[in-house]
């Protein structure tokens, strides 16, 4: 088991393994998306209060969950980079950032689209959306720092520190934003948190959540492979592989 981990650290092995996994992951992703979309858009009944607009939740909530999960993973890989200096961890963290930022953006945009018919405004400073906005800034900061540093390995280590600092701060930010929101509660009561969710809506939500996770893995491997190729372009294994094509 331990040897497999060690093997995984080898760029060539990772590249080929990822290449073999991607089609399977992609297939599974598509299946779950189709199932989730069918269950969420067709099978699930309209909501008593929100009618059909609540269906946006099936995109909004999984996106928000993923935005948090991806940042946590980025920080975890950052730790691996700082402690063990594993190249693959550098690549995984770097590849995750744009995906996580996309999820965050999607959560914000769909949150806005969901909120407009409900609250009459395109944007409300509710706790969840405000937290997501700050998370987007954290992602963008990560990507900006990475882009600003020339040497790839230094960039990886610097962004690792940033990701860990960000991760430690996220609970504090969440707590402060939720607290701030309750203090100014007069404005709106957030409807994005359903008090208790009906099973017919919970199942599509979970299926979509799984679809999003599989999607993340698929895209992660695709981006990582490409990133690895770019970083290792003069390595012997890359040259051999290109010659064989």
């Amino acid at each position: 088991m331990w040897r497999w981990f060690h093997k995984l650290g080898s760029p060539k092995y990772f590249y080929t393994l990822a290449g073999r996994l991607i089609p399977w992951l992609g297939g599974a992703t598509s299946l779950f998306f189709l199932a989730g979309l069918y269950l969420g858009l067709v099978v699930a009944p309209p909501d008593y209060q929100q009618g059909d607009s609540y269906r946006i939740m099936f995109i909004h909530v999984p996106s928000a969950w993923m935005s948090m999960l991806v940042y946590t993973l980025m920080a975890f890989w950052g730790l691996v980079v700082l402690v063990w200096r594993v190249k693959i961890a550098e690549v995984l963290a770097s590849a995750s950032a744009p995906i996580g930022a996309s999820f965050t953006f999607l959560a914000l945009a769909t949150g806005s689209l969901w909120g407009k018919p409900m609250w009459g405004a395109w944007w409300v400073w509710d706790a969840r959306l405000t937290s997501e906005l700050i998370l987007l800034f954290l992602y963008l900061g990560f990507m900006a720092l990475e882009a600003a540093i020339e040497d790839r390995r230094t960039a990886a280590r610097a962004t690792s520190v940033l990701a860990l600092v960000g991760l430690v701060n996220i609970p504090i930010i969440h707590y402060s934003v939720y607290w701030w929101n309750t203090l100014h509660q007069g404005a709106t009561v957030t409807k994005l948190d359903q008090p208790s969710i009906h099973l017919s809506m919970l199942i599509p939500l979970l299926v979509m959540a799984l679809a999003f996770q599989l999607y993340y893995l698929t895209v992660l491997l695709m981006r990582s492979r490409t990133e690895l190729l770019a970083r290792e372009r003069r390595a012997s294994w890359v040259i051999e592989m290109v010659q064989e094509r």
Partner: protein
Amino acid sequence: MNGSSLPRALLGLLRRDLLIAYRHRGEVLNPLLFFVIVISLFPLGISPEGRVLATLAPGVIWIAALLSVLLSLDSVFRSDFEDGSLEQLLLSPQPLTLLLLAKMLAHWLITGLPLVLAAPLLGVILHLPAAAMPVLVASLVLGTPVLSLIGAIGMALTVGLRRGGVLLSLLVLPLYVPVLIFGATAVEAAAAGLSVSGHLALLGSLLLFAVTLAPLATAAALRISIG
């Protein structure tokens, strides 16, 4: 290495930074001036009406403080980076985290403390109720060091970069949000006559948290940026 060299090294560093600041005291006043000017812009941009200003005052003062500290962060490391003393710091046998704490203390004394002292006056011109003044000062005393400490991490990450200034803001401002929220709401609560012990406790916890962890992250970041 004799046992008393750590305290001596720390005091030496503190003295040095304060001395340099004193020699350039014109520059040191800039963040304070920025603080005053920014606050003055709000009545001009929004409304001079007393009631409106009083509502805005806690947030405005806190945001201005936050931006002023951000502006001053450059002074913490950049000149030391340019003259090589930052590298010397990394090579020192003393623990880097403690040396950085000393540096952060110096930075706060130079930047944060003037803001704290100026705040009541600015509270007056923003029609902040007198009852809120002590809490304003207390919240800034607890909060501005946190801003220095967090800002140092960002500074350490970007010190070697050419146009690190704007990037620094992007990295550090999201991390400032909790301090801003706890600080501003403390002052608002005081202005409304409510209890502030919870707010100040939260600020105090943030300070403790920052003092223990931020130097570690700053040290790691410096080693990466320079080492």
